[in-house]
């Protein structure tokens, strides 16, 4: 298991670096797909199979198709000479340092904690992730679920209003 973790971690970091360093946007997009797959691997290692499948379906599937389509429509073949300001670099470095410090603080300061509650690994492995999520969505979190549906509906109306030329 630990070996798998390191393999996935290597793939994720490598592909993330390639995303930002490639000059061709299409290549970057394809590396992003690889990065999403590596993240899905992490989810499987953490016993979250449902989330892994969702990650591949939604991110690596639907969203990446959108990204590639937009790249195709805009017909960007190559980004030449990206301007980088001096203060942009400084902000980037500061944010990177802060995030790295955060990671160090968590790993040093935080202690390992066993999952609490009734859903231990054994229970989840017995009945399956999907069923647990389904039960929660339709009992404890029904209202959040319903509001999310109205939210998406309103967002669709908004997209329609902005995109349509003549109403």
């Amino acid at each position, binding site marked *: 298991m630990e070996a798998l973790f390191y393999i996935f971690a290597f793939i994720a970091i490598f592909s993330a670096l390639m995303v930002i360093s490639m000059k061709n946007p299409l290549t970057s997009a394809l590396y992003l797909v690889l990065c999403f797959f590596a993240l899905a691997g992490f989810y499987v290692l953490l016993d979250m199979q449902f989330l892994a499948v969702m990650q591949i379906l939604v991110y690596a599937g639907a969203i990446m198709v959108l990204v590639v389509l937009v790249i195709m429509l805009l017909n960007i073949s190559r980004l030449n000479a990206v301007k980088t300001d001096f203060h942009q670099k400084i902000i980037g470095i500061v944010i990177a340092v802060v995030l790295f410090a955060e990671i160090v603080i968590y790993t040093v300061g935080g202690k390992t904690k066993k999952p609490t509650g009734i859903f231990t690994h054994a229970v989840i492995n017995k009945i399956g992730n999907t069923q647990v999520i389904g039960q929660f969505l339709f009992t*404890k979190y029904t209202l959040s679920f319903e509001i999310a549906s109205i939210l998406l509906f309103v967002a669709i109306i908004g997209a329609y*209003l902005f995109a349509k030329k003549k109403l």
Partner: protein
Amino acid sequence: MHNIMPAIYGLNSLEKSMISIIPEAVIILFAFIVLFLTFFEKIAKGKNSYYLSLIGIAFSILYVVMLSGKNLTGFYGSVVFNGYDVFLFIAILLSGFLTVLVSKDYIENFDVPYPEYYSIILFGISAMMFLVSSNNLIMVFISLEFMSICAYILTGYIRGNTRSTEAALKYLILGTFASAFLIFGSVFIYAAVGHLNLNSIHTYLENISYVKHGSASILNGMGEYLTIGLLLFTVGLAFKMSLFPFHAWTPDAYDGAPTPITSFMATGIKVAAFAIFLRIYLLIYNFNVINFNDILWILAVLSMTFGNIAAILSSNIKRLLAYSSIAQAGYILVGIIGGGFYGYSGTLFYLFAYIFMTAGAFAVVIIFENSDIVSLDVKKYSGVGYKYPFISAAMAFFMLSLAGIPVTGGFMGKFYVFSAAVKSGYYWLVFIALLNSAFAAYYYIKIIVKMYMPDKEDSSVSCIAAEGKNYGIVNGNISEGIMLAIIICLFFTLIMGVYPQLFINFANYSAASLCKI
């Protein structure tokens, strides 16, 4: 089947849950009805959507009044409905009511569909109400996002207007960023305490601090997670409250949005964000994982000072009111820092007063904007005081209230909030706040002076409405919707200044049911 869920979702439980969200459900129902008007071309053109939305809000207020005094929990503790919600629901619904009232004439100036506009306003109101009543970190996030999406759409509603679209884009990008902070914060809080329900988190923290007897170094090793979570959460909410370092979107979004929507953002969204912040503050922040009052102290002082300085320098009236709303957010925060029962009830009182003075000021701006008499430039207001005595007097009154001159609601609110802070020993904070409000009086009174004492060279400004463009003022009469809005605002601002006891009792009742937990 492996049935792990201990409680079966019985019919009885569903009924009880539904009652606790009836006011929101009514608003959503009316939003859908208004939206369906678009199917019928003839009906969609007229005033039907306007009247229907007013009726919907009135119905919702009726349900809130009918349910007041009840103490309800619904959907496994996702939402609560008690005295706190009654107060804030009425505040939010009135803010929505005023927005719809002032919208009709404004929106008819543009070639945009009406029913969608009103229905999104209604959706936005329901989202704010859900946000206020939510008692669960997931609900907080989803309803905050719902509210924001309605605001983004409404900000960019005037298609073809580059300023409006630019404002919507800026608001969308920065707002999404803030939401990311908020959800990141909730994840850390969940990681630290293992609960999503606010009351459960409260009980968990209470037990731990009871066992350990100390405020610092609680939560064996989980304190870091909780601290970082709460800090990120504060950033997410401070964005919606437009406190100083997170205010960058405010002037542009307020300036570019249609003016009724600016009023809606300045009143409704701000009240909802403050309400949920107050609830979470009381339930989680109060445990002093680190001293949050110090952080809020800095935020309040910076917001007040920055807002006032920027407002003095701006000449566009919408930008001026935007900066003034940043400063007002600072004053409201003083009440939360002051804390205690007195401070919370003062905060609620000030929020209520703030709605009416801000909405009233924006209503007057809308009248002048509609009638094309004066543009948004403050200089153009010179001399309108004699042409339009009533609305100018109303504007003067709202400005005095915002400045905190006695006999107005704004004064009582400030008095209440500042005295709460003094009681808790925040002398420096109150000193800075008083200095700031004296400073702020300059630009509020500058507008009044402009209206009643025109400069010599400016007096030639044509005060005659352009032919065929008399949307707001028809034959010297202002259309009844805006007039009604101004009268409501005047009435409440005056009553809260002259006879505040009524509202203080209401705020006390509301704060009491918040503190009871």
